[in-house]
């Protein structure tokens, strides 16, 4: 995150030196983008906050660990698809799940689907890319998540 701020600052500085007019326009564009997205974003965060109340992380661990591999992969992809967790929560959570005996296969499905499939971000994505493309893209991402988890399972010798 520090890098992100550093990069943005550097960008603005260079931009100001090069052309003040354009820099102002860039900042205005950034602000407009943000404002346009804000209501949808707040709705999304509200939904996430409610979902996470009913489905806290220890519950996730329980669902993923205790069932068979195939069921685990299916549940993991679905949970991954409907959640929106930032990376710094996801990976410690995965580490925890791993210690509790959740397989790499299931974790592969979980992380991939978590990062690629966005059910809660659907309304935002739809605004930029339309319904059709959003739906197709997310379905493809879900399929990829399952394939990736299968490959990971093969290599860690958890499946077959």
């Amino acid at each position, binding site marked *: *995150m520090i890098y992100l701020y550093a990069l943005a600052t550097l960008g603005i500085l260079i931009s100001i030196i090069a052309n003040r007019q354009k820099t102002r326009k860039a900042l205005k*564009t950034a602000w407009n*983008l943000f404002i346009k997205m804000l209501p949808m974003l*707040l709705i999304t965060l509200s939904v*996430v906050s409610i979902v996470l109340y009913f489905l806290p992380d220890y519950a996730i661990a329980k669902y993923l660990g205790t069932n068979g591999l195939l069921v685990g992969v299916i549940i993991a992809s679905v949970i991954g698809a409907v959640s929106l967790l930032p990376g710094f929560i996801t*990976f410690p959570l995965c*580490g925890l799940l791993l210690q509790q005996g959740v397989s790499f296969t299931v974790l592969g499905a979980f992380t991939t689907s978590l990062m690629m499939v*966005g059910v809660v971000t659907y309304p935002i994505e739809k605004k930029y*890319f339309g319904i059709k493309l959003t739906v197709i893209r997310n379905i493809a991402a879900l399929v*990829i998540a399952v394939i990736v988890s299968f490959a990971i399972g093969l290599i860690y010798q958890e499946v077959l």
Partner: protein
Amino acid sequence: MANNKQNTKKQSKKPLIILLSFYAAFIAVSLIWNFQPGVKIGDNFLFFSVDMFKLFPPAFILVGLFMVWVDRKTVEKFFGETSGFMGYIAAIILACTTLYPFVVVLPMGAALSKKGARLSIVLTYLGATAICRIPMTIFEASYLGFKFSIIRYLVSLPLIVISSVFIEKIVGKNYMQENNLLESEAS
């Protein structure tokens, strides 16, 4: 806590605002009467918001700078129809350096599209940002091992490129234009 929500909003956003107001009211009432589920939900909201909004200023500024400074020709050269296979590689490299959350990746992808990037390459970019951000990978590898991350890269990246090409075939190359998704506030 969840109060600074409905500030500067305008036009046809009414239903959203009403929903948000209900949500805010629910949280507020929960806080006053100490209704535990409500308080917990409010906590969750705050937790995620703080996390996201900290990333927003620099992320949006970078997208803004991109939109103003990078001209159409450059984008077309690297990500357009004629870029060929290298376009996908370029999209993946761009994705690797991504630092911001998916909700900012979306406008960035849209910006690429506006500037003339090929649809399948934009899709590759969207998919790859989820897979191969370097900062995230370092984090992932430290918890799950490098082997895990490497397998994930090797398997998912080709699949993303392939699926992007297919999706472009399905919806059509001019999908964005046909659906009026390119109207822009900064050309």
